[in-house]
């Protein structure tokens, strides 16, 4: 009883806080008043402006001299800061998403291992959170210093939304600290549900933060709520809800999870390899496996979210789409292929190595070589550029930022076949691994198996058929359209695989799994994953940002700074390497801190002797 009342003191204010905050976020009731006021006053101002036909303020047109220089390329400074902020932001937003899921699994299964693992994941997220904020602040300062006209305009367009963002940040900190530090205090019974609710709030605020920040980036790519010269004519909602907002929201949400899973996987791999006891080794092996599972599961649908984003970009501006997929930026997709290929190979290798944990996996050993073969061939097809070696005249003919020679790269049917098959076969690895410690007991297991095999076979056939037939023997529109067909086939395999296995292995007979019984070498796959993810994120973020070419805000505000051109791929690649290495260094620092918090210094020998009496 005593313990209970002590806890209650904690909860009631906590609960109140949660409910008040939640109301604030949903915006239906607004106890603090600021959210509604902000929007209301914004709307009023807009209305007044429109009604009175008052002179609307156009976007500024700075000249090159208006950009303050500090001796180093302003773009590079902002590039590094923004990318670091995004890396850590992604990590901080992603970890609580799967932590709450793992925590819930822990509650449902009653297995304390889940709870401990979720708690440990959060520990990594805590240090990352402060680093995110630090880089965010520095980025804002750098932008105000180096791009004052641009920032003045952005401030004018988004206005009080920026303050909403800031207040969301406060709420995020609040929930994060209560969620993390309240973990053990709110561990069992009803308290656990309070804790889970806190986690939900944390995720709610986090997701809101992300979509608010995304609206700035998407406004720069495809402005909405402003007229041709950039004067604000819509309310803040119209400004935010541009055509690319939701595609970016979805894409970042999924990618963050994959990224977060990969980073904590590296932590687990490191801890596993340095573990001194078999028990710890088993724990971290399991943690690494779970992280990898999260990363790959989130990674598989990512190309499709990317496809949606690209389709929306084409729909918004065909020019912008072609700049991304058919211009000089098209070469970056070769690098992307190398990175994604690395990720898929590493993930598969990790799964295959992991099969040594379980006797039941012997059944599937024979398939691995075929999967590996398809993956390697797919990878090779994918990275082969349309024209591998450019002659001097081809390079010269490229001239500007766009050229018809490179156009086919974006919609190369051979590559689409390769990518889709790689995804299908990675999922096969995944599924075989998932089945390796189970024997189905349901009566329709044979039928389920036959169905699954048929789905794989027909999907593979359909992917190849669509790519070859529509890709090479019909016109362009059908060629482009058929890639959706391939995507549909791949998605069918993934969804059907998840559903069939979930049903078929319900109450299945479980075979023992020996966690920790895996080679150290396989753990390097868990390092390869986050490194490739980080570089990939830097790369694709660069492409996303570069499609604006020499516009700060596409069609509205020209970039007249000295850095207003698309740099050569080598230069961009070096920048990406720089941010990736910087990120690695910071992540190692985080791991070190997480490790440090678990260590206790032994009392000095002198003090012990002194305590025992007998001053020398």
């Amino acid at each position, binding site marked *: 009883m005593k313990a209970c009342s002590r806890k209650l003191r904690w909860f009631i204010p906590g609960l109140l806080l949660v409910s008040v905050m939640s109301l604030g976020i949903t915006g239906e009731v607004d106890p603090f008043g600021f959210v509604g006021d902000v929007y209301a006053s914004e709307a009023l101002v807009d209305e007044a402006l429109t009604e009175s036909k008052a002179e609307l303020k156009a976007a500024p047109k700075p000249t090159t001299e208006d950009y303050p220089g500090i001796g180093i390329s302003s773009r590079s400074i902002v590039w590094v800061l923004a990318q670091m902020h995004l890396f850590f932001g992604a990590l901080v937003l992603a970890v609580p998403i799967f932590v709450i899921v793992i925590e819930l699994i822990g509650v449902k299964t009653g297995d304390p291992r889940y709870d401990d693992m979720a708690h440990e994941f959060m520990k990594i997220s805590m240090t990352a959170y402060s680093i995110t904020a630090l880089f965010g602040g520095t980025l804002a300062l750098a932008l105000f210093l180096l791009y004052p006209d641009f920032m003045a305009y952005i401030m004018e367009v988004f206005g009080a939304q920026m303050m909403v963002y800031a207040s969301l940040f406060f709420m995020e900190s609040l929930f994060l600290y209560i969620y993390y530090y309240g973990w053990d205090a709110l561990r069992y019974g009803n308290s656990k549900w309070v804790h889970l609710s806190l986690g939900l709030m944390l995720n709610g605020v986090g997701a809101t933060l992300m979509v608010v920040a995304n609206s700035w980036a998407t406004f720069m790519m495809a402005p909405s709520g402003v007229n041709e010269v950039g004067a604000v004519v819509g309310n803040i909602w119209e400004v935010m809800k541009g055509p690319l907002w939701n595609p970016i929201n979805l894409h970042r949400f999924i990618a963050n999870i994959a990224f977060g899973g990969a980073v904590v996987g590296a932590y687990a791999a490191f801890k596993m390899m340095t573990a001194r006891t078999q028990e710890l080794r088993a724990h971290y092996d399991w943690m690494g496996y779970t992280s990898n599972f999260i990363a790959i599961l989130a990674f598989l649908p990512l190309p499709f979210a990317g496809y949606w984003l690209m389709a929306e970009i084409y729909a918004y501006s065909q020019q912008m789409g072609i700049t991304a997929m058919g211009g000089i930026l098209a070469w970056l997709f070769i690098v992307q292929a190398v990175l994604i290929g690395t990720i898929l190979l590493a993930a598969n290798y990790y799964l295959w190595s992991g099969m040594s944990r379980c006797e039941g996996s012997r059944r599937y050993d024979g398939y691995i070589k075929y999967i590996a073969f398809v993956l390697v061939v797919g990878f090779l097809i994918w990275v082969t550029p349309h024209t591998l070696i450019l002659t001097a005249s081809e390079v010269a003919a490229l001239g500007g930022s766009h050229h018809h020679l490179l156009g086919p790269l974006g919609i190369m049917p051979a590559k689409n076949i390769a990518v889709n098959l790689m995804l299908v076969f990675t999922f096969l690895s995944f599924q075989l691994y998932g089945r390796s410690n189970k024997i189905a007991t349901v009566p329709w297991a*044979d*039928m389920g198996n*036959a*169905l699954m*095999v*048929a*789905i794989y*076979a*027909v*999907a593979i056939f*359909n992917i190849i058929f*669509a790519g070859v*037939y*529509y890709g090479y023997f*019909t*016109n362009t*529109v*059908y060629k482009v*359209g*058929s890639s*959706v*067909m391939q995507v*549909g*086939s791949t998605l*069918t395999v993934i969804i059907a695989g998840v559903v069939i296995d979930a049903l078929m292995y319900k109450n299945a007979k479980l075979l023992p799994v020996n966690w920790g019984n895996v080679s150290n070498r396989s753990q390097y796959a868990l390092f390869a994953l986050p490194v490739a993810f980080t570089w990939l994120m830097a790369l694709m973020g660069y492409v996303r940002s570069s499609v604006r070419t020499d516009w700060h805000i596409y069609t509205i505000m020209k970039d007249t700074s000295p850095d207003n051109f698309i740099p050569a791929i080598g230069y961009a690649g070096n920048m990406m390497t720089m941010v990736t290495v910087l990120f690695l260094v910071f992540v190692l620092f985080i791991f070190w801190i997480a490790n440090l918090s678990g260590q206790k210094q032994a009392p000095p020998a002198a003090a012990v002797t002194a305590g025992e009496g007998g001053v020398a």
Partner: protein
Amino acid sequence: MTTDKKNLKIWIIAFAVVLLYYYGLDHFIMSVQGLPLNLNLTPAQ
């Protein structure tokens, strides 16, 4: 013998169902994009 026959039936049914599904999927996906197909899957435009 009977289990073999039963198995064969299962496989045939599974493949038939899946083939039918993908045939429908191809038609559906293409027509949603405004690119209808003929019954033999050749472009109708």
